[in-house]
């Protein structure tokens, strides 16, 4: 029982981190058909920023991470993606791999490939004991931070004019432009948001791992991509649910599979993704009602 509850908490907190990654990927995919693998380096650069400021006052370090990552995201958009904005998705994908490769190797040049340990938010190592279940503070903070962020982004997308424009652009970019929505602005805001989300992921990830290594963001971006596929490309709530689902499924599989099969956990997750692609190419979480008459 304790194990079941503990596993559920694990599932939610891992899923929460994936959900933010997926939202960042899903947002940019919706707006410009870009699968932004460079998001992995947005996260990684955030972690390195925190590593360098490990001895600074934490709120300052966190703020620095957000600023650095957002600036990086905006710069990458400006220098790398804007020139190929109207290219086909395959070209965009290659561009994003190139950016990712470039940034990763830049980190290797600057810091070396050896992981660097550091301690950020050591207080989160504490735990709250509820009956027999021990809930690490980090899990609570992760769930709280991701919920807040998702709620914030959700409200932004629902209530502000820019947010509504972004949602419109995410489903039909051309029509949005025909109605006067400025492409540059929407894309820049999209990258800014992806930067903020990556920075939050990097803070939580740094607190969890205490390690900075040049390729550490890759898996998060990959999962984010898988989650958007599951959730339905261009469907933002779907991406979030997809992220939660992938996180939860991985944790649950790890918890219930017999030892010999746990090694193949990833394979099960990806098999599920392929099944989704075959059976519901529009994604799991896109309601039929929303799609009809389009």
């Amino acid at each position: 029982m304790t194990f079941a509850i503990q596993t559920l908490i694990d599932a939610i907190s891992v899923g929460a981190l994936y959900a933010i990654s997926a939202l960042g990927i899903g947002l940019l995919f919706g707006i410009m058909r870009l699968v932004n693998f460079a998001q992995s380096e947005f996260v990684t650069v955030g972690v390195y920023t925190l590593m360098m400021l490990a001895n600074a006052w934490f709120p300052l370090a966190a703020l620095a991470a957000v600023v650095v990552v957002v600036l990086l995201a905006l710069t990458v958009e400006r220098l790398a993606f804007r020139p190929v904005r109207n290219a086909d998705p395959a070209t965009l994908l290659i561009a994003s791999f190139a950016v990712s490769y470039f940034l990763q190797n830049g980190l290797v040049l600057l810091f070396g490939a050896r992981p660097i340990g550091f301690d950020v938010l050591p207080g989160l190592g504490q735990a709250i004991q509820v009956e027999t279940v021990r809930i690490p503070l980090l899990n609570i903070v992760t769930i709280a931070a991701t919920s807040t962020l998702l709620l914030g982004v959700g409200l932004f997308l629902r209530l502000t004019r820019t947010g509504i424009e972004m949602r419109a652009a995410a489903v039909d970019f051309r029509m949005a432009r025909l109605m006067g929505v400025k492409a540059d602005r929407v894309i820049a805001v999209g990258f800014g948001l992806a930067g903020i989300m990556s920075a939050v992921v990097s803070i939580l990830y740094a607190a969890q791992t205490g390690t900075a290594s040049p390729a550490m963001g890759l898996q998060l971006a990959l999962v984010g991509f898988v989650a958007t596929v599951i959730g339905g490309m261009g469907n933002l709530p779907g991406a979030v649910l997809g992220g939660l689902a992938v996180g939860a499924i991985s944790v649950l599989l790890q918890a219930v599979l017999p030892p010999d099969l746990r090694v193949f956990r990833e394979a099960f997750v990806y098999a599920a993704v392929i099944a989704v692609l075959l059976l519901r190419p529009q994604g799991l979480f896109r309601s039929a009602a929303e799609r009809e008459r389009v």
Partner: protein
Amino acid sequence: MKILMLTALAAVAVSVLPASAQDDAVTVGFPLALSGFVAPYDDGPLKAALLAIDDINSRGGLLGEKIISVESDTKSDPAQGATAATDVLGKAAKMIMVTCDFDFGAPAALVAESQNVIAFSSCAADPKFGVQGIGKNAYTMSTASISQGATLAEWAHNEKGFKTVYILKDTMVEYTKSVCDSFEARWTELSSAESIVGRDTFHGVNDTSIASQISRIKANSPQPDFVMFCGAVNGGSAVRQIRAAGIDLPLLSSESMDGAYWLAAIPNLSDFYVAVYGSAFGNDPDPKVNDFVKSFSAKYGVAPVTGHALTGYSVVEAWAKAVERAGTFDTDAVRAELDKFTAEPLMVGKTTFTPELHINVDRPMLIMKIVNGKHEPIERFITTKLPKVSF
């Protein structure tokens, strides 16, 4: 202007001269990962090897010849390994040292094999790195992963008196899998299968969190006496998560967890044991190792990050001894001498090679204990029952 021209000419003249043409000098080649993702693992062994060359040269060289080194970057790309090896062999290298890993080192070693030149890996711990996997000229200075696992099992059982164990295995690389598997085999011999109270796997890079692995350890009843932790890359992250979850069990690990670079992630880490080649912290029970660390620090300004550096030193040391005994640089003669090494006292420890086995299986490892974030040496130890080597 004239001076500039002359200097330029001189520079050209020097650079076009093949190294072999330099009188009274013999070349050792280093086709290694000087940049990229594998570079950290080659860095220490390379620097140590260059230190060994300095030491030999300061004693008058080898067979009266000065040793010079040439380096070529594989850029951490196995495919570039062959190119880099061809490059240094083209500069007349009489021996090459390759990357500390079978997959990354083998391509270079195969090129050396084809030109009948001895190729040493600094620390590839896979027994395939040798006669069976590459050829008769391929050696590795490492202690085999299978010995490391068995050694940790026997030490935990006999010296620590631990009764039960939980095995946590990183499945990303062959090395950690091999360490855990040989641990399990030896532990089962010494104790019983039942005393392995749980086992789990994780992936050092793909698992962004090991939360469910941790929950499983915690749910295990009874709690084990210790956890055999076969981790490598990002192992520090896993240890941080384990300790943050309140698991204070002793953790045992092998040389892939050597070094202090990851320790900042877990301030005041204690009850962590690691079997290493030698202490990189200046407190080895063997004063020779401490002297090495001192001269390494003197030459490079920093101490070696891990004890793996010792393997690099001993590559040059071993080859030089064999050359001296053979009285020639001729590969066949040198190989014959290397294959006669029996408990040869090298910097990295007692080293044995045979015509069939070019990796060490019975060299003691130094067990160190981390107490409050500091490495303390305990003892050198080796399993009494050597594992069966399979290739």
